């Protein structure tokens, strides 16, 4: 949809992405501190990534299909907060950690299960947003 907002300067975009990324990383760290047991199943990053993927599904429908949001909203929340909250490296680290412990089957289940959970979450988030928010029908 055409935007009524002027295009923001590149420096402003980088600044809000950085601020959002710092906050997102802090939130991920805070969730991780709530389960300090290193031998526990890697629920923390699985949950963080699933929640973050549902969040991006909702956000992207909201700002690209429903509302003419301020042009810094998507970089701040999408690229910054949710991008910094979710993590591919922490996911890969969990796989490595499980393999090091000799829990090969759990590692394989975690590897594939995260992909399934993430894709289901982003799809469900976008679908729920298209149903819930007023606006034109989904393209």
């Amino acid at each position, binding site marked *: 949809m055409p935007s009524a907002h002027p295009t923001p300067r590149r420096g402003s975009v980088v600044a809000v992405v950085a601020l959002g990324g*710092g906050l*997102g*990383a802090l939130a991920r760290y805070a969730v991780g501190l709530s389960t300090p047991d290193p031998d526990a199943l890697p629920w923390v990053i699985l949950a963080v990534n699933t929640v973050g993927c549902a969040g991006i599904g909702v956000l992207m429908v909201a700002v690209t299909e429903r509302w003419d949001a301020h042009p810094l909203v998507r970089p701040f929340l999408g690229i910054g907060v949710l991008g910094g909250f979710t*993590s*591919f490296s922490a996911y890969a680290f969990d796989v490595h950690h499980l393999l090091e412990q000799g829990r090969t089957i759990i590692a394989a289940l975690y590897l594939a299960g995260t992909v399934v959970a*993430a894709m289901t979450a982003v799809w469900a988030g976008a679908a729920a947003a298209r149903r819930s928010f007023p606006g034109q029908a989904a393209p």
Partner: protein
Amino acid sequence: MSWLWVFVGGMAGAAARYLVDHAVKARADTPFPWGTLTVNVLGCAILGVLTGLSAHGGVPEAVRLTLGVGLCGALTTYSTFSYETLTLAEAGERRAAVVNVLVSVAAGVGALLGAAALAGSW
């Protein structure tokens, strides 16, 4: 103090992800999300090096928090990866969507395992 390390690393990681994604998109004029694939593999490789080095106990906690949890954590992303995969699938590019998932997982996890093995053997 640990919160500050994570925050600073997260800021740098997210900003770097945005800039690298932009630079890659400017060079590769294709709907395939090469930018996100690049940062995810790069971040996994850096975290792999840290993981390998820390096996010898040589990585201070502040470095692990800044570079591992903050920088690598925020340089890489699962939300943009999943959203771009969904976008490919919704645009009818089903094969590209499946390829993106398989290549991202194989290259990302492979980069971390390989880098950890290399750095751990030093």
